[in-house]
């Protein structure tokens, strides 16, 4: 465990541009150790694109440049396609918003979890079966035929997201990137899934980059927060101090959440033009 203190992910001046030269992510610099970091901001602020750039998933006509982009001390900037493929799903995993869209709809869940192990190792079928059972029980599911033989559409949202989490963690990655992992779930399930994720990440001493626009939840589950606006990091703070954030943009994001106590009042809104405000994807 000599690696714990060293950053898992080092990003320096990460920039993503469109073919016509518009800057979408602008000179981002941050490090991530075995800790829980949240990347927050509105739709279109570039947070998902940042995650994709870190995973080498940005395709032309978009271009990625960086002064430094290292995962586990490996330089990602010059990585070849096979080198990327070896790392994605084994050293770094990506969990997306809606399990119904990120799982293959025509392959049974058990086989999909199995596949990610066969792609990244030589474990025997018996070992893989044991690992699936252990992993599923870690995310609170039983490795029964009902789950393993189910197609993704037969799972509820919460179960689907647990299956995704199991899949993403089964190869023991050092870093999990979760892009709005709970926005397709209802309020009660959100906390369940996040709590589970935080427990597993902590137990396995992994790094977590959680992309979210839900600041109160981020404050509860993460340690550090990076606030993005229009492609830049505009504020960095500890999650615990979010409620007292001084930056006006962070403040506005924090205050705009409705509740029973805001009944009859105007919610504070961000002062921004409608033109640059992208759609929720």
């Amino acid at each position, binding site marked *: 465990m000599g690696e714990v203190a060293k950053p898992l992910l080092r990003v320096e001046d990460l920039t993503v541009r469109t073919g016509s030269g518009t800057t979408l992510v602008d000179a981002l610099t941050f490090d991530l150790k075995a800790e829980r970091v949240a990347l927050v901001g*509105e*739709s*279109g602020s570039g947070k998902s694109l940042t995650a994709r750039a870190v995973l080498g998933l940005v395709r032309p006509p978009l271009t990625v440049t960086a002064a430094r982009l290292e995962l586990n001390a490996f330089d990602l900037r010059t990585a070849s396609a096979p080198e990327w493929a070896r790392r994605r799903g084994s050293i770094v995993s990506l969990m997306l918003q809606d399990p119904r869209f990120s799982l293959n709809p025509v392959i049974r869940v058990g086989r999909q979890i199995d596949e990610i192990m066969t792609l990244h190792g030589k474990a025997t079928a018996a070992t893989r079966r044991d690992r699936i059972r252990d992993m599923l029980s870690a995310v609170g599911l039983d490795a029964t035929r009902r789950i393993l033989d189910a197609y993704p559409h037969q799972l*509820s*949202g919460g179960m689907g997201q647990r299956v995704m989490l199991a899949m993403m963690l089964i190869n023991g990655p050092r870093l999990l990137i979760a892009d709005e992992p709970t926005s397709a779930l*209802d*309020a*009660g*399930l959100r906390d369940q899934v996040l709590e589970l994720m935080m427990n597993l990440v902590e137990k396995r001493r992994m790094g977590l980059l959680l992309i979210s*626009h*839900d*600041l109160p939840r981020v404050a509860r589950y993460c340690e550090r927060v990076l606030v993005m606006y229009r492609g830049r990091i505009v504020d960095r703070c500890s999650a615990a101090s979010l409620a007292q954030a001084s930056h006006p943009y962070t403040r*506005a*994001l924090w205050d*705009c*959440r*409705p*509740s*029973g*106590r*805001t*009944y*009859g009042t*105007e*919610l*504070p*809104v*961000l002062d921004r033009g*409608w033109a640059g*405000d*992208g*759609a*929720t994807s």
Partner: protein
Amino acid sequence: MNTIAVDVAVKVDDLSVRFAESRHPRWVIDNLALHIETGVVFGLTGPSGCGKSTLLRVLAGVNRDWQGTMEIFGRAVTPHRRFEGELRRDVQMVFQDPYASLHPRHTVERCLAEPLRIIGVTDGRARVAAALEEVGLSWDVAYRYPNQLSGGQRQRVAIARALLHRPRLLLLDEPTSALDLSVQADILNLLNRLKRAHPMTVVVVSHDPGVIGHLCDQAAVMQDGKVQRWLNRAELSQEGSFK
């Protein structure tokens, strides 16, 4: 029975809805009674699958396969029949995903002018301009297609369309859950503003206790097709008193 029927916007009794297509038919709404007074913002909340959206679709006349009795503004509605007469204008709905509820190949102008043309309004253009202004959009967006709008703008267009006929009952199905928190705040403010400007009864479905607590005067928490709990304003104000 109360005799002041005028003050009741929605009066539903013994309502049951069953989804029969699966092998195990299941009561999605099970003997439910719901009375909503005129002018109230009423919330329906509960976990996924509790029947809250189905109930809203029955009130909207979208789901017509139900049993029981239903009156909207004192007019009886019959199962398996479309809404008739004024009810068709009086009841309007806004859906969760504005992208799915706006025709992708129609401009905003066309999408808003169509419901007016159908009822024979001739000054359509002026009404569309007024409707856009009312939801905080400029005439610039009138000739755009839905994919050229942001999520918040799209939901504003959907709200503008619902308000064109000056409905007396506005139904909102998760009106902000496809939106960012910051855009959600804009839309919630807009809804409150519109409610103040036009007296309407509003029924809003949301899984988010924050949205329900912010908007509603009264609410019902549903579970397995039944109302599990009724909430008044004081209970809605207590953070964490329901989920």
